[in-house]
């Protein structure tokens, strides 16, 4: 159905009015922009005029701004959205999202229940994966957050793939029964929602995941899962290590010269007291090499991911 612009779940070539595009300034500096006829966006390189600079241009194009500097305009993806969305809560990043997606066995056609919606980071990723035939039921107990999420899904033209409910999942569940292939929980007391998760899942079974920052939460949740008959209960965590690619130059230390012997001047490679032959192949000056250098700091913990299977047996 090409009349509905579904750029978040399908690629298109050119930028259109109403799209959410990503402005890339260089080296991880980027921000989202809502493309509109007559719209203007300020960047440190100058102004971008939507009508002339964006609409009709190919995604991936370079756009020169009014001050002469330039940017790239990128097609939106859930991953780029995650890096740039406005935070209303702490969000899940792509590292955890990747693992969740695979371990819950999500694919086109999957029916998924999620709570809490939060800032919609995982929601966008789920919608992308289950499209065009699946659906996401997402529950958020905070009214404004639920409304903001609903708004964003509409702006991103994915509302046909998602249903937002403003209620407390621990008290009232997901609002659906026996339809889900997978359930995801990122709430303070997930053990209180395990029963509801079980009834939301299909009778023949499905997968569940609970994300909790604290081990005490994990312990309670695992117990609740066991009590409700879930199997294959497994807790793990995943961390991302990024490397900067750098050309590194190390100076060769000056170890001095051996004392001269009677035979005379000069060092040659056969001379035993020559520092180069004693201590390796390095000559004077610097040695250069390419290295993948870890960053000074890395994320050491986001949360524990607990997966389990609902089975008939």
């Amino acid at each position, binding site marked *: 159905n090409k009349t509905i612009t579904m750029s978040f779940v399908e690629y298109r070539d050119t930028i259109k009015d109403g799209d959410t595009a990503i402005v890339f300034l260089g080296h991880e500096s980027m921000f989202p922009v809502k493309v509109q006829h007559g719209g203007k966006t300020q960047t440190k390189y100058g102004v971008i005029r939507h009508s002339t600079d964006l609409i009709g241009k190919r995604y991936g194009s370079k756009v020169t701004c009014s001050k002469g500097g330039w940017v790239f305009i990128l097609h939106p993806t859930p991953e780029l959205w995650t890096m740039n969305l406005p935070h209303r809560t702490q969000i899940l990043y792509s590292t955890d999202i990747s693992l969740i997606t695979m371990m819950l066995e999500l694919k086109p056609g999957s029916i998924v229940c999620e709570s809490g919606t939060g800032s919609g980071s995982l929601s966008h990723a789920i919608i992308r994966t289950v499209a065009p035939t699946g659906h996401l039921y997402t529950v958020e107990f905070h009214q404004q957050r639920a409304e903001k999420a609903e708004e964003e899904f509409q702006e991103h033209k994915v509302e046909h793939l998602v249903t937002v409910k403003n209620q407390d999942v621990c008290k009232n569940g997901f609002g659906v029964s026996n339809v889900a292939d997978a359930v995801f929980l990122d709430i303070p007391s997930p053990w209180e929602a395990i029963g509801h998760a079980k009834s939301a899942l299909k009778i*023949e079974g499905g997968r569940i995941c609970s994300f909790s920052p604290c081990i005490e939460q994990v*312990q309670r949740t695992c117990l609740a899962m066991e009590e409700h008959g879930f199997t294959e209960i497994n807790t793990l965590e995943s*961390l991302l290590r*990024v490397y900067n690619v750098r050309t590194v*130059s190390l100076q060769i230390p000056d170890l001095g010269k051996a004392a001269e012997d009677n035979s005379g001047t000069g060092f040659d490679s056969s001379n035993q007291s020559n520092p180069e032959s004693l201590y390796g192949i390095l000559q004077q000056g610097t040695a250069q090499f390419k290295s993948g250098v870890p960053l000074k700091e890395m994320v050491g913990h986001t949360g524990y991911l607990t997966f389990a299977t609902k089975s008939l047996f």
Partner: protein
Amino acid sequence: MAEESARPGPRIREGDWAVLKRDEVFKAVQVLRRRKVIFEKQWFYLDNAIGHIYGTTFEVSTGGSLQPKKKMEETTTETKEAGTDNRNIVDDGKSQKLTHDDIQALKDKGIKGQEIVQQLIENSTTFRGKTEFAQDKYIKKKKKKYEAVITIVKPSTRILSTMYYAREPGKINHLRYDTLAQMLTLGNIRAGNKMIVMETCAGLVLGAIMERMGGHGSIIQMYPGGGPVRAATSCFGFPESFFRTLYEFPLSKVCSLVSGTFSSETLPSEPDYNVPVEEESNGSLEEKQTLIQETEVESNTEAVMESIETGDQETMDDLAAEDAECKESKERRNKENIREKQRKQQERKRKLVETAALLEEKNADGLIVASKFHPTPLLLSLLEFVAPSRPFVVYCQYKEPLLDCYTKLREKGGVINLKLSETWLRNYQVLPDRSHPKLMMSGGGGYLLSGITVTMEKVQSDANSLEAQKIEEPASKKRKLEELHC
């Protein structure tokens, strides 16, 4: 079994590709009647499984037939008696009074695993002295060994990637399953994409991509040598329709395609690459049933059947006539075979030209590379076929080739947001008062280089220097880093 048929859920059918599961061990098999299967030191037939719902657990009973096992009742160990610590527990190897033979005798009598575990507990002199936790651990260990239940589950990327990493990591270049998960997400793999894939991971990566595309969109698989290996892809059990939009293209023709001198005249010689070479498993490696062997046996049987049919009459005249008939039909069959071969050759050429055209559109939605080859030439050439503003992900078992790849990509231009990373994965044991990370963890799962394509600029040097300026960290930060490493 009215109760059985009333239960909802996909049922195990003959011909399905399924996965046998026992605790953490998996084996992918095709469900075929009268076919002996070895799994975790047990021999059995899958015939009885047909018709049951996926997720059913079975026990292997005498004769190698599977019997569905009902949900296990909790073995309430009456022994509340336990010790406080292990200061007096001496491990002399003599605490278990049952011998190997005793246990074997119990097994031979057909005593259920549950009962054997109970017997072991009663005959252990040290059991009552163990702490509750130690008793718990002991029971779990014995149950794992003696209560052998096999579950039959549907294949998925999660299961197959875990299986391969555990037992045949060499076949998949040591690609750990969470690294694969990152690739699928970073690459924005989804329904409707036009993907280019280059992998030498037995077809596991291809299968994972196909699962995430759900049969929508198209995939062009680049392959080295004579043809792509898709042994693992078969294990997913995708419907036929998924394969209609799967294309393949030989790497040996990439240069000609990029330079515009492509010709379909010389095709690489083609092995029979669509037959899975062996039943893939992460179970015991002694299991060597090969499907290729079996298909050979089948075709021999067919040949025998044929010859019996043609040799029906017994009279001399008939024999003579038969002889001539035999010769004629043989000649006919030979001609048919040649025609069939030619037809197949033509079909392959046609597909090759079609695939080349798809590549030449240079509008692929993404590129995934995961192979034993050095990634740089693959990236630099295959990115030519990818549209701008699309993600690409390269996996390499080693970090260094990706350093080179990164550098060459920077020089070439047309890419942004380059990131070199790896994921660290850790499993936990979660039990009341006994929660901690597990003892062993994976030492490494490979490295990923990812990025996004952008339009190539005509004024190359300009763009590169500007981009280089932008991408380089501010000078002060750079100096600090180097200081750290001196």
